[in-house]
């Protein structure tokens, strides 16, 4: 289907909201995206007509719910181009996915002195789980620095990756800076050095950049709610041979073959990692969100998003006293900035009164903020339904902030 932003906007009921009499201009999509009507309907329909627990399906509803859940797994597998659907594990979101890998893979594969390689632009969710496993195993964290152009320093990467490097965990797109990392070449280098790789796709999947075979990584993780789906559902994709070698992360029902008090044997993947009743409705909702975005030509969708982002960068770049931290040559989704004399929180408050929703703060990337020498930025982040008109609304609201503070 051809991508037409006005048609898309009509699919998202919340976008017509008025905020204190002003048209909502929602530019906090890196934090969470809005939901199209089909996703809202899917959740309502699931709970109205299909709800039951799964995998126990002697009864009709149990079968429907089981079908919805397994169908969702197939939809995700297709969306990310997984080798097989058993490589798709449903989690609560990106954070849980990374914790699962750090805990299960990390505790069995890392030893004292081994190195975990991260980048300076990681979200706390891709730092803290690794610190926890580093503390437990004696492994060390190494960090690839971010340069003045908001890009990872690839020369430093070449020198940091070494004999003791066991795992590289890197974001596909920086949530703070909008930098689109050269994942393919980085993964290829890591792979050549025998390093296991995890890509945090929380900000990449929404821009339809989640082809795991193309990327070549070993693990790929993302959240449902950042790609127009519900909260509380996310995905861990991993290569089957790796997942097969990993012990359970949580124990409970649904993940076991046989339990006695002496010994328990576990199911294979993906069930081994899905203890307890999963978020069945969430999985169904995520599948409908993915089906929704898949109806569009991905090139057209990305072209529209790029068009709006580049317009925003140009318009903001023209404003006096504005410093942009979105400087990478390849970028997606977000522009981070500060204004002379107005703190980002004050900007966010003033913009909110103009209907413009942005994020202000450290964006869960405190180490990055420290390296940039700021303690907060304002961030406008875009989704497929945003328009150039909304960029104008943002720019006008920023002018009002200047007026108020001058």
């Amino acid at each position, binding site marked *: 289907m051809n991508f037409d932003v006005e048609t898309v906007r009509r699919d998202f009921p919340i976008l017509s909201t008025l905020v204190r009499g002003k048209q909502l201009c929602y530019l906090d999509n890196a934090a969470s995206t809005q939901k199209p009507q089909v996703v809202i309907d899917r959740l309502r329909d699931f709970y109205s007509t299909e709800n039951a627990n799964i995998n126990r399906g002697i009864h009709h509803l149990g079968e429907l719910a089981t079908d919805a859940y397994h169908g969702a797994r197939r939809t995700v597998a297709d969306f990310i181009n997984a080798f097989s659907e058993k490589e798709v594990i449903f989690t609560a979101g990106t954070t849980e996915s990374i914790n699962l890998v750090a805990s299960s893979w990390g505790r069995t594969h890392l030893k004292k002195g081994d190195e975990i390689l991260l980048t300076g632009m990681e979200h706390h969710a891709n730092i803290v789980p690794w610190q926890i496993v580093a503390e437990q195993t004696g492994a060390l964290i190494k960090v690839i620095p971010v340069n003045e152009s908001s890009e990872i320093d690839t020369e430093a990467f070449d020198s940091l990756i070494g004999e003791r490097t066991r795992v590289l965990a890197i974001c596909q797109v920086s949530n703070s800076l909008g930098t689109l990392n050269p994942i393919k070449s980085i993964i290829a280098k890591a792979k050549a050095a025998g390093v296991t790789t995890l890509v945090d796709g929380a900000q990449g999947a929404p821009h339809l950049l989640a082809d795991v075979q193309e990327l070549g990584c070993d693990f790929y993780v993302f959240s449902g709610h950042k790609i127009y789906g519900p909260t509380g559902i996310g995905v861990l994709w991993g290569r089957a041979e790796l997942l097969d070698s990993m012990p359970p992360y949580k124990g409970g029902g649904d993940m076991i073959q046989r339990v006695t008090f002496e010994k328990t044997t576990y199911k294979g993947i993906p069930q081994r990692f899905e203890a307890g009743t999963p978020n069945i409705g969430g999985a169904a909702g995520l599948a409908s969100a993915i089906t929704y975005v898949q109806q569009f030509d991905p090139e057209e969708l990305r072209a529209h998003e790029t068009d709006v982002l580049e317009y925003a960068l140009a318009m903001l770049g023209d404003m006096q006293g504005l410093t942009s931290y979105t400087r990478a040559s390849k970028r997606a989704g977000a522009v981070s900035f500060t204004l002379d004399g107005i*703190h980002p929180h*004050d900007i966010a*408050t003033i913009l909110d*009164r103009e209907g413009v929703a942005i994020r202000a703060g450290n964006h869960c990337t*405190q180490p990055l*903020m420290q390296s940039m020498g700021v303690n907060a930025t304002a961030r406008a982040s875009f989704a497929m339904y945003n328009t150039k008109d909304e960029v104008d609304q943002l720019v006008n609201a920023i002018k009002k902030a200047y007026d*108020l503070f001058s």
Partner: protein
Amino acid sequence: MSDDLVDLYQDIILDHNRRPRNSRKIHTATHQSEGINPLCGDEVTIYLDLLDERITDISFQGQGCAISQASASLMTEMLKGLDLDETRQHSKILHDLLNSEEDAQDALLKYGNLAALSGVRKFPARVKCATLAWHALEAALRGKDSISTEEEL
């Protein structure tokens, strides 16, 4: 510009944000504490010189939004020379101010410069900005060297 915003960013607030009073370190401080809001990154360190239960000197250093910095600046201006009872009274006044429905004009008559913070009432997400310095002050008086807005005092 909305009235709410004009109430929030009153001239006194903007002035204290631009030209913070008592913004320095007291090297010989008898009490000090750092207040941080981990959700937004605001930081305010309060320095106190306390002699016979009286604040002989008070200052702050920090970075953050206009509300957090102006609030800290206003606080140091108000509390210098007061004893601990009076300090606690002022703390209660600020608390009342941020929670009551009194209109800004009445508050101004009653609470002096502190009333400039009354506009924060209409911005629930920003109340923590206005109270950060006061939390740090209380922590300093209790001998705690840091306090987060995400923990109970």
